[in-house]
């Protein structure tokens, strides 16, 4: 385990409004940015609905917190993995996912996508490399 910086991975597996897990997971993610660790997010299973485009919660009376994901890039959180099998199983493609971006300070602040498609098998390997995995 490397000294100082740890790899934190937040795995989001649940739809955004049926339970509070998505909202409260996002709150931990935003706080973690202040600790100068290596932070990545995963959206898989129904968790991919958390970053689906065009969310409208008006009829349900819930707070639409999805715009907050767009701020992740400003917090230097720019490794956002979307599991491709989860998309396919739900009839979705990357076109249905919010355009989450960051500005790359090593490339003249060019705007780049934070979304990284990943297969289930690749994700298993990536999880194996983490120091801390928090899933909900």
């Amino acid at each position, binding site marked *: 385990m490397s000294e100082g910086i740890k790899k934190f991975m937040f795995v989001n597996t649940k739809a955004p409004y049926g339970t509070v897990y998505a909202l409260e997971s996002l709150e931990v993610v935003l706080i973690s940015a202040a600790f100068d*660790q290596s932070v990545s997010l995963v959206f898989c299973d129904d968790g991919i609905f958390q970053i689906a485009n065009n969310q409208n919660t008006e009829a349900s009376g819930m707070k639409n917190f999805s715009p907050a994901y767009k701020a992740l890039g400003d917090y230097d959180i720019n490794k956002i993995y979307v599991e491709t099998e989860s998309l396919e199983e739900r009839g979705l493609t990357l076109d249905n996912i919010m355009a989450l971006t960051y500005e790359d300070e090593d490339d003249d602040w060019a705007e780049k996508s934070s979304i990284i498609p990943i297969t289930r098998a690749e994700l298993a390997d990536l999880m194996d490399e983490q120091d801390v995995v928090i899933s909900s």
Partner: protein
Amino acid sequence: MKFTLLINEGPYQHQASDTAYQFAKAALEKGHEIYRVFFYNDGVNNATRLAIPPQDDRNITENWATLAKEHELDMVVCIAAAQRRGMLDADEAGRQGKDADNIHPAFRISGLGQLVEGGIQADRLLTFGD
């Protein structure tokens, strides 16, 4: 080994807190260290001092409080999650203008940074919940 425990589910509704408690007890008996126990999501409800479980059942909050006293455990309740659910200590109740408080003195209220710091300091962070 040094552990931080994350408990995400409420008492009695879910086994998460019981399992975490049994784990903590067993780990401490084996000479391991519990760096912190962090209560999040509905897990914050484990810190209520007002629960009255039936006498022939376990008292989850008191179990945690007793273990914490024996081993000087740092038991932290997330303030944001606690406020949402009406879990307040006396200080917070005063600050928010509420007429009651319900957090057991064995627990302390603090921010989510304590969870992240717990993950950094411990050798393993274990999540108990769904």
